[in-house]
C-alpha cells in the first residue's frame, strides 16, 4: 500500500476516457461501480466540454454483486450501441470491476454488437493514466487500421502525415495542433489524420495512407506509432517542437522526411522570444536557478528552453511518469543534476526545498508547493486545473508557443522582482516584513506542525524553514539576514551555515555572513 494524498495521474481507465472523449463516434462501455462517473466532470468542468464524455458506466452496486454483473454489462453495452450508434466501441473494466473478474472482452464478443467492440486490458493496480491512454489508442489503431490501404507513389503529390497524440484533457493540445498545422502548411505537407483528437473510427481505418507519423505527445502516441512503423513502414518524427530551437529542429526533421524545403517554415519570424530574451531587460534572468518537474516530454523540453533560450541554470529536473524516465535521466545528466523520478509529491517538495530554486516550473502541484515555499512558479505540464485550459490561444509548441512560454515563465519572476523592491523598501515605510508576499498573502506559510486550528496569521513564519534553530547566529548577523529578500533568505541561511560548518566556525557573525557570501558568489 502506498500512502497518498495527491496523485499526478489518475487510474488507467481515465486515460482510456481521455482517448474516447477526444474521438468522435466512439463509445466507451466501462464496467465500473456507482461513483466512478466522477471522472466525467474532469472533462465537463476542467476542460469545459459542452458534451458528456461518450462513456456508459454499468454502475453496479453491492446488491448486484451476488447476482449477474455480467448481464448488467451486456445490457449497458447493448443500450449504448442502440442509443449512440457509434462506429466502434471500446469496452473495459475499472479497478473494482477488474477484481470481480467479469470479462468485458469475452462478454462483448458473445453479444454480436452492431459495431466492432475493442476490448481493453488496463491493469489498474500497476499502471496509470498516461499508460491507459497510450494502450487504448494503440488498441484502437491496431484493431481498426485497414491493412490493405496502399500508399500512392510519392511522385507528383504532396507528402502526407498523421499527427498523433492530441487528446482530451491534454495540456494545451488544442492550440499546439493549430501551430503544427501551420508548420505543415508552410512545408506543403498534407495532414492525413489527427488522432485521437477529433478522429472517428472510420478515419482511423485510413491511418496507413500517410507517409509518416508525427508523434506530438509520446506519452499517448508512442506505442501506436511503433506499431505503425512496423505495420505500414511509416517512419515517426519524435522531436518535440517546444521552444525555438526545438521547433527549428522539428521543421528540419519534417522537411527531410517530406522531401520539402524547410526555408519557408524556418523563416517564420513570428517568434519574438529570441529578441525578448536578448533585450537588456532580460539580463537579470541570467543564471536564475530553475527547478523543473512534470511529464517527461514537457520537462525535458522545458529544461532545454530554460538553459539554451532563457539563460537559466537548471538546478533540478524530474518527471512523474516512470515510462519515460529514461529520457529524463539522459537530460538530467546533460545538465549535471540528479534526475528525480517519483510520483510522490512530498519527495518533490523536499527536492525543491533542498535545491532552493528561484523559479519552479511544474504542474498544478508544484504551483502549490512553490506557493507554500514563497517561490515564483509557472505551469508547464499536466495535471493542471481549469485556468490552464484557457479561452485564448496559448500553445506551447511552435514559434507562437515560444512566445507564450517566454511570457508565462518570466511573468512570475517580474512579480518576484516587484516583491524584492517592496522588501527592500520595507524599512522605509509601511512595507513591513510581516505583510508577507503581496500576491499570495492568503497563503502565508504556517509552521509544519500546524493543523487547521493554527491559522493564526498574526504570527507569520519564515517563508523558508531554517535548517537549524539559528542558535549559532549572533543577533547582529540574524538582523542582517532579515534584510535579505525573503525569497533568497532561506538559501542564504543554509549556505552560510554550511560555510560556517565547513570552516569550523562556532558562531555566525557579520563577518561569517559576508565571508560566506563571497565564497558562494558567482
Amino acid at each position, binding site marked *: *500500500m*502506498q*500512502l*497518498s*494524498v*495527491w*496523485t499526478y*495521474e*489518475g*487510474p488507467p*481507465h*481515465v486515460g482510456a476516457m481521455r482517448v474516447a472523449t477526444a474521438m468522435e463516434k466512439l463509445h466507451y462501455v466501462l464496467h465500473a*461501480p*456507482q*461513483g*466512478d*462517473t*466522477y*471522472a*466525467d*466532470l*474532469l472533462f*465537463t*468542468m476542467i476542460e*469545459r*466540454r*459542452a*458534451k*458528456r464524455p461518450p462513456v*456508459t*458506466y*454499468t*454502475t*453496479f*452496486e*453491492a446488491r*448486484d*454483486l451476488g447476482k449477474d454483473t455480467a448481464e448488467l454489462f451486456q445490457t*449497458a453495452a447493448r*443500450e449504448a450501441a442502440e*442509443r449512440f450508434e457509434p462506429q466502434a466501441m471500446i469496452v473495459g473494466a*475499472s*479497478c*473494482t470491476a477488474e*477484481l*470481480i473478474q467479469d470479462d468485458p472482452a469475452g462478454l462483448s464478443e458473445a453479444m454480436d454488437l452492431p459495431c466492432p467492440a475493442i476490448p481493453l486490458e488496463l*491493469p*489498474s*493496480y*500497476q499502471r*496509470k493514466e498516461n499508460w491507459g491512454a497510450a494502450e487504448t489508442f494503440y488498441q484502437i489503431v491496431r484493431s481498426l487500421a485497414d491493412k490493405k490501404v496502399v500508399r500512392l507513389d510519392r511522385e507528383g503529390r504532396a507528402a502526407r502525415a498523421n499527427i498523433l497524440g492530441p487528446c482530451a484533457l491534454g495540456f494545451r493540445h488544442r492550440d499546439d495542433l493549430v501551430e503544427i498545422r501551420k508548420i505543415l502548411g508552410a512545408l506543403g505537407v498534407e495532414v492525413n489524420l489527427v488522432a485521437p483528437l477529433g478522429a472517428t473510427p472510420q478515419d482511423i481505418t485510413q491511418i496507413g495512407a500517410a507517409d509518416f507519423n508525427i508523434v506530438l505527445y509520446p506519452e499517448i502516441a508512442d506505442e501506436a506509432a511503433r506499431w505503425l512503423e512496423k505495420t505500414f513502414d511509416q517512419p515517426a518524427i519524435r522531436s518535440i517542437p517546444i521552444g525555438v530551437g526545438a521547433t527549428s529542429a522539428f521543421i528540419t526533421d519534417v522537411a527531410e522526411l517530406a522531401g520539402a524545403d524547410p526555408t519557408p517554415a524556418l523563416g517564420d519570424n513570428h517568434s519574438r522570444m529570441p529578441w525578448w530574451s536578448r533585450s537588456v531587460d532580460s539580463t537579470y534572468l541570467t543564471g536564475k536557478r530553475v527547478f523543473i518537474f512534470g511529464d517527461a516530454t514537457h520537462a525535458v523540453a522545458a529544461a532545454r528552453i530554460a538553459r539554451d533560450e532563457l539563460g537559466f541554470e537548471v538546478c533540478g529536473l524530474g518527471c512523474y511518469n516512470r515510462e519515460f524516465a529514461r529520457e529524463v535521466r539522459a537530460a538530467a545528466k546533460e545538465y549535471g543534476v540528479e534526475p528525480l523520478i517519483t510520483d510522490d509529491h512530498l519527495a518533490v517538495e523536499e527536492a525543491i526545498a533542498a535545491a532552493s530554486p528561484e523559479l519552479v516550473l511544474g504542474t498544478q*502541484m508544484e504551483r*502549490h508547493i512553490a506557493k*507554500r515555499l514563497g517561490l515564483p512558479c509557472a505551469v508547464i505540464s499536466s495535471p493542471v*486545473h481549469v485556468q490552464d485550459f484557457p479561452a485564448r490561444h496559448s500553445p506551447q509548441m511552435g514559434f507562437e508557443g515560444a512566445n507564450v512560454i517566454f511570457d508565462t515563465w518570466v511573468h512570475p519572476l517580474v512579480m518576484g522582482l516587484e516583491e524584492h523592491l517592496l522588501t527592500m523598501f520595507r524599512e522605509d515605510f509601511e512595507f513591513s516584513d510581516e505583510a508577507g508576499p503581496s500576491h499570495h498573502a492568503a497563503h502565508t506559510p504556517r509552521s509544519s*506542525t*500546524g*493543523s*487547521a*486550528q493554527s491559522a493564526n496569521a498574526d504570527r507569520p513564519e519564515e517563508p523558508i524553514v531554517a535548517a537549524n534553530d539559528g542558535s549559532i547566529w549572533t543577533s547582529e548577523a540574524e538582523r542582517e539576514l532579515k534584510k535579505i529578500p525573503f525569497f533568497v533568505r532561506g538559501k542564504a541561511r543554509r549556505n552560510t551555515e554550511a560555510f560556517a560548518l565547513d570552516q569550523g566556525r562556532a558562531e555566525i557573525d557579520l563577518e561569517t555572513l559576508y565571508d560566506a557570501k563571497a565564497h558562494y558568489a558567482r
Partner: protein
Amino acid sequence: MSAASTLTGCATPSETAQRPVLRERGQREVFCGLTGIVWLHRKMQDAFFLVVGSRTCAHLLQSAAGVMIFAEPRFATAIMEERDLAGMVDCQDELDRVVGRLLERRPDIKTLFLVGSCPSEVIKLDLAKAAERLGAQHMPAVRILNYSGSGIETTFTQGEDACLAALVPEMPAASPDAPQDLLIVGSLPDIVEDQFLRLFAQLGIERVGCLPARNARDLPSIGPNTRYLLAQPFLAETAMALETRGAQRLDALFPFGAEGTTSWLKAAADAFDVDEMHFNRVIAPGRERAKRAISHAKAQLEGKRISFLPDSQLEVPLARFLATELDMVPVEVGTPYLHRSHCAQELDLIPPSARISEGQDVERQLDRVRADKPDLTVCGLGLANPLESEGLSTKWAIELVFSPIHGFDQAGDLAELFARPLRRRDVLEV
C-alpha cells in the same frame, strides 16, 4: 405527461396514502460516499480519514476536494497495489505500517477513520477487524473507527451517514433517569450550528449536543431521554443506530427556509414543553428576516419550473422549500434514496403534479428533462455544462452540500443559489 403515466411496475406503493414514486435502475451519475470526507474532515478537526482503496479513490478525492487538497488536509488514501491483491503481502500488515507512518507524521490526530472503498469491500478486506486491532495498539491517544464510503454501498451524502453511524456506539451512555436532552444530528457549518444553539438556548432548551461534534473525541452522551432532530435528510443509518440506543426522533420538516426552520424548531420546543407564546417571541425576528430575504429572489423564481436530478437526498426538502416559499413548480424531484418516514411531511407539501423519482437511469432521465424543458435543472457537474449547451439552465447540486443553507439566516442565500443562474441567463448578451 402526467406523473402516473411514467410509473413502472415496481413502483407500487406499499400504503395507499403514499404518493407514487417512480423507481428506476440503470446508469447512475452520482458520487460515491467517499466524497463526504471532503466536508466531514473540516467539521471534525481532530479526525483523519484514511481511505483504503485504489488510485481511482485517491483521484476522486483530489477531484472533489479541488484546491483544498493542498492545505495539509486530514485525509489520504492507502492505495492498494498489485502485491496487496496478489497476496504477496498481508494487507493487514500493510495497513498497520501505513497507519503507523501516518500517526507518526500527524501526532495531532485523535480519531482515525479507516474508510472502506469498492476495491476493499470487493476483496473483503476486514477494516472492522483492523480498526479494532489498531485501536487496541493506539488507544488512548488515537481512537480508530471504520465505515464504508464505497460506491457499491453509498451514494454521496450517505458517506456522512455511514461515518456518523460509526460514531454512535462511541457516544457515552446517559443514565435512564437523566433529564431530557436534545441532539442535533448531521454536520452543519459552524456558523449555522451556532445560530441553532443560540435559538435553543433562548427557547430555554439547555442540554443540546451535536453529532458530529467539532471534536470527534468530545461526543455528546445518549440515552432513553435523548430526543434528536435530524438536520439532514440523508441520515437513515445514523437514525437507526441512535434509536437502538434509546433516543427518539422528533418529526419535523428539515430546516430549510422560514417554514422548514420554524417546523424544525417547533418540534423541539413541543418536546421540551416550551410555552407557545415564548416560542413565537423567540423565533419571530429570525422568521421575519428569513421571509424578507427570500422575497428578494421571489420575482425571479415564482412560477418557474424546476427539475432535480438525484444527488444528495436534499432534493425533496429543497423542492418543498422552493414550492411552498418561492412558488416554484417542481416538475421532477429525483433523489438517490427516499426515506419515506423521514421525508413524510416534506412529501405532503410538494404539489401532487410533481413526479417523485428514486434511483436513476441517467439516459432515460435526461430524455425526460429534455421533454419537460424545465426552467432550471439541478444536477451534478458531469451533466451541468452539457445541459447548458443544450439550452437548459442548470444549478450544480454539489454547492448545496458545501454552502451554509440551513436555518433562518441562510434562507435568503439558499433562494439566491437558485435565482442566480436564471438571472445570469438573463443578463448575458453574448
